[in-house]
């Protein structure tokens, strides 16, 4: 008896997680609302001075998106550990790292993508010049997968501990510094220099893409199954 191909399995996995996210679409809206509210607070706190807001807009949007992603991160593997789905996933014929990779992709699609979609709105709230917005979006498109991958490793590390959300934030935020520096730098210059910085970000992403899911699979099988 032959097993379904990797592509079928990946599609099944991705469809499952997207369907689950859709059934709980209120949870998808939460980080988006959080990002909107946090961004709204800045003009209130700093006053409606255009030049000041413009100067900090890129960084504010980046950090807000990062914090909003943190809100949804600790749920990445927890429900699968609780209901035994992870055991079934470990026993499935496909490599676990690949299946977890699909979970990370689904997680990125359901948490980071909505945030990227509203990023232009967030930027507009802070009067970021329209010309800079494409660079901001590009920086987010490169930085958020990196955060998802780094986050997945830490979620695998902290899964099963009490109050893992807080611990996760404390561990992940320092690791995000390079991504934030590169992305913020790119937005601040918004010129040709951006290309080489985002290139570095992409390189780091490729490394993460290869190593993070395998690390997660190792960690989750040894400690939580």
């Amino acid at each position: 008896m032959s097993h379904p191909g990797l592509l079928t399995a990946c599609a099944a996995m991705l469809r499952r997680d997207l369907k689950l996210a859709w059934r709980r679409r209120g949870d998808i809206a939460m980080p988006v609302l959080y990002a909107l509210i946090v961004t709204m607070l800045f003009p209130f706190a700093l006053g409606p001075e255009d030049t000041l807001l413009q100067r900090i807009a890129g960084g504010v949007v980046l950090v807000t998106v990062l914090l909003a992603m943190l809100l949804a991160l600790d749920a990445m593997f927890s429900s699968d550990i609780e209901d035994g789905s992870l055991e079934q996933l470990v026993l499935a014929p496909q490599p676990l790292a690949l299946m977890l990779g699909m979970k990370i992709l689904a997680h990125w699609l359901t948490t980071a993508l909505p945030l990227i979609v509203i990023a232009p709105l967030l930027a507009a709230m802070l009067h970021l010049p329209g010309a800079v917005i494409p660079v901001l979006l590009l920086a987010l498109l490169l930085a958020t997968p990196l955060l998802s991958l780094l986050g997945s490793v830490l979620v695998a590390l902290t899964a099963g501990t009490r109050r893992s959300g807080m611990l996760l934030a404390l561990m992940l935020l320092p690791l995000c510094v390079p991504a934030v520096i590169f992305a913020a730098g790119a937005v601040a210059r918004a010129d040709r220099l951006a290309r080489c910085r985002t290139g570095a970000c992409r390189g780091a992403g490729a490394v993460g893409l290869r190593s993070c899911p395998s690390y997660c699979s190792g960690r989750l099988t040894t400690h939580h199954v």
Partner: protein
Amino acid sequence: MTAAHTAVPLLEARALSFLRQDEPVFAPLDFQLHAGELALVEGDNGSGKTTLLRILAGLLHVGEGELNWRGKPLQRDNCVGEILFLGHQLGLKADLSPRENLQIATGLSGCRDGTSVISVLGEIGLSGYEDEPVRRLSAGQKKRAALARLLLLPATLWLLDEPYANLDRTGIALVNQLLKTHTTAGGAALVTSHGAVSFHGGEPRHIRMHA
């Protein structure tokens, strides 16, 4: 049966034990399981029945001793897709319906020839509940939804941890029937249970666990 016994056993344990913080969880075990056989794992609470099943499924590493699958050391590569494990946690997503849960299972492990998700759900007694979220099913119905995997997925060895828990009388009869069909077709099964079990088709092999 006699021919099967001379063949290489499907599963063979020699002085198998598992260590938790350097303490053995159960006394060393020796047993063989051939194709077409059924084994009942017996023992008190905390005697390590679940641990044993998890080791056999490959979810825990063997502590000491040997564990062979078709004559070779049990590893993920040589038994992939042949072992079906059903634990205390049912592995069902509460927000999805039984049908969707089984569709994922077939997407990963494939499905037996001549079966389909819908036919299997009918057989297991969940017709009318195919599209109800698992969250809203009763404990017994959830168990049935998980047991439907036995009918649907291709596997040689079934490892069933308390398959009778939460089931009504017809459900228990159904599980016994499933076990009979599986062993007659050349499969094997290891079952843990607290309750009195009456298998169809002969006396099962007994594996006693001692703490």
